[in-house]
């Protein structure tokens, strides 16, 4: 850059698009009597035991910085948990880094791994920040579409087709936000083979690992040969209703975790000590509370998916996370028009599918981490809305 005032925002930041989801929240804020299936967070309060542990830590005066990696007792608890639940082994001293939410973990991984121009295959539709995170680190997100006809599973042929000699990593998140799709062990194996064959890092966002309504979650790192090639992301936001606490973690080979920790030590320092105390309690004593919430989500899931189908929307069976992703193509509206009209006319907030990437077009995301009565009202209002639409032939 030469000449001219330096009093300006860097060009790549000025070009950063605001997330499509935020734009929608802006529409919602200020409206009254809205039933929101919009925000992707639990409606449950954080289990009391967790809160209590944090408060006790405060009372004992624990308000200082922690080690950059996070408190060792927390890292040990995470290691135990991953071993028992998913059969993967990580050394709490060197292979686990506690972060300010999974968000920070993903950002650190992108910075630690990507050179300018390196490509990351991103399974889409996906969490709104994946692509921006890759771009901000100088990488290039390359979209790999998944489709409703294939239950939004990631196919190795699609990965193969997107591969170039700049491909460096695959980024996937199952159970999936926004589709609710899952991948079984059999579905994941070919992805692992693909990654192994081409020497790619796999960034596996498993924040919804526990929110599975059929079968067991397979941790990507537990697949043959994948431990040394995978960065495993998980956190407390969803399974323990701790979104506001901002706590996540990332596990992987020592060298990469070490590099991520160096960056973290200069960009963040450590995660909130209070949240860390809460998280220790969550892992040690809150399986019951967690499973109760999951049972409730499952009940709501059935109710919502059946309801959506009953009012005439095609909806594939979501088996994970807490989202349904019905197709609205039969209405003749596009997803943005649908979501805006539904909000305006019936005061129900859902998120247009394109907020999660072009491949989400024609769908809307409905989060069912909300009360049954809200779900019932939402369905009634949606039925009324659909009734008024001219019939499609």
């Amino acid at each position, binding site marked *: 850059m030469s000449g001219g005032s330096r009093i300006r925002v860097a060009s790549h*930041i000025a070009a*950063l698009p*605001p997330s499509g989801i935020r734009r929608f929240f802006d529409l919602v804020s200020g409206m009254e009597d809205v039933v929101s299936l919009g925000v992707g*967070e639990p409606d449950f309060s954080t289990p009391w035991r967790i809160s209590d542990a944090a*408060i006790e830590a405060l009372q004992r005066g624990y308000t200082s910085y922690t080690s950059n990696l996070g408190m060792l007792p927390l890292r040990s608890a995470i290691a135990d948990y991953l071993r028992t639940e998913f059969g993967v082994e990580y050394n709490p001293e060197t292979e686990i880094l506690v972060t300010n939410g999974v968000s920070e973990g993903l950002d650190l991984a992108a910075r*630690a791994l990507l050179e300018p121009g390196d490509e990351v295959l991103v399974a889409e539709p996906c969490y709104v920040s994946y692509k921006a995170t890759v771009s901000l680190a100088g990488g290039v997100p390359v979209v790999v579409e998944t489709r409703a006809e294939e239950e939004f599973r990631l196919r190795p042929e699609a990965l193969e087709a997107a591969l170039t000699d700049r491909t460096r990593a695959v980024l996937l998140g199952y159970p999936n936000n926004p589709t609710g799709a899952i991948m079984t062990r059999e579905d994941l194996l070919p992805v692992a083979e693909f990654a192994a064959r081409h020497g790619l890092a796999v960034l596996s966002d498993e924040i919804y690992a526990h929110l599975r309504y059929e079968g067991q979650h397979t941790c990507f790192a537990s697949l043959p040969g994948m431990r040394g090639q995978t960065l495993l992301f998980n956190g407390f936001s969803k399974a323990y209703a701790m*979104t*506001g606490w901002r706590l996540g973690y990332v596990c992987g080979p020592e060298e990469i975790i070490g590099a991520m920790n160096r960056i973290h030590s*200069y960009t963040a320092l450590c995660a909130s000590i209070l*949240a860390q105390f809460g998280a220790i309690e969550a892992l040690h004593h809150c399986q019951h509370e967690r499973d109760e919430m999951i049972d409730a989500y499952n009940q709501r899931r059935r109710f919502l998916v059946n309801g959506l189908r009953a009012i005439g929307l095609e909806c594939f069976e979501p088996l994970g996370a807490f989202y349904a992703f019905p197709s609205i193509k039969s209405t003749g509206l596009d997803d943005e028009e649908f979501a805006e009209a539904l909000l305006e006319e019936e005061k129900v907030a859902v998120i247009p599918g394109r907020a999660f990437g072009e491949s989400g077009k024609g769908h809307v995301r409905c989060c069912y981490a909300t009360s049954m009565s809200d779900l019932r009202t939402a369905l009634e209002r949606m039925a009324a809305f659909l009734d008024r639409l001219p019939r499609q032939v």
Partner: protein
Amino acid sequence: MPARLSGRAKDLKSSATVRLENLAKEMQRQGLDVLSFALGEPDFSTPPHICEAACKAIAEGKTTYTPAAGIPELREAIARTVERDYGYSCAPEQVVVSNGGKHALMNVWESILEPGDEVIIFAPYWVTYPAQIGLCGAKPRVVRTTIDNDFQPDLDEVRALVSERTAAILINSPSNPSGAVLERSIIEGLAEIAAEADCWIVSDEIYRHILFDGRQHFSPTMVGDEVRERVLLVDGASKAYSMTGWRIGWTVTPLEVAKAINRLQSQQASNPSSISQWAALAGLEGPQDCVRKMCAEFERRRDYIIPALADIPGVKIGKPAGAFYAFPEVSAHLDGHIVHKGKAVTNDDQLTTYLLEDALISTVPGSEFGLDGYIRLSFATSMDKIQEGVRRLRRGLVGG
């Protein structure tokens, strides 16, 4: 894998502070009575009324995501604090709350720097500065200051470093590690240079509450309305309210930058802890005597440690006007008269290792902050420990 790391990750060294702290902890685990003067955080717990506000927030279920830039209540309170303390009007939209001052500062760099840009910084500097600037693909250009001119930068040297690529001049007053406070005339001079260069001024004012001898804080935002348009201010709750572990810091910037930071943060990190935000709000809105009391205690310790250090032969020290660090010049002891494990000690890095292993006190070498021949001692520790620490340092340096 694939353990191929990006260039920026490989270039980044872990800081000596962390390395020394780990070594010190390891020695403590082995039962050795190591005294630490290495860490940069207040030794007080967070005041009770702030903790109570956190408990209340938890009990009220304020444990969900907040807007990425922070809850409106906190942004408003910060804007009011700016109006009160700095005397200019500030809109809440100019404020973005982040995971600590460190994160807030990183957001600033990412919002303004492009690869190849330069930032003028003053040594001794907080290690994080060159690391963060480097992570953005930009370069620090360093102006050295020394104890002889009270760590005030020479304006002509600053001017000489300005180039087409100068994106910002960084000010950190009071300073970590020197405790120096920049004179008003110097800050005004820097503002003039920034205006000539038409670049930003980034001002890290995290230690602004810890000032001694009745001094008032002077910020580049106070130079005038025009200057303020180019000042990106970083502040936080860590040092003022002993809230290091809570991770709350913030930026106050012109609107355009605040919007950029907000977008960036919403993609990269989302909001800082909701509970910590409510706690920080209680800190800002509640009684401020906790800040004054803490500051008075730091001043008492400074008044002890500075003369005590000055009394050690070969130790040169000024009088820090703020923060909680003593930063003596010790090059007289690097002439090889100290021998550690069979080797002559000739630089500050070797000296701090010697002091740790032999005198059992942990300090940080000046070279960590870009200024050889110094060591940093944090006096955010109890008076007893300070007294014992100074005794050990004297014994380590001059024997007896």
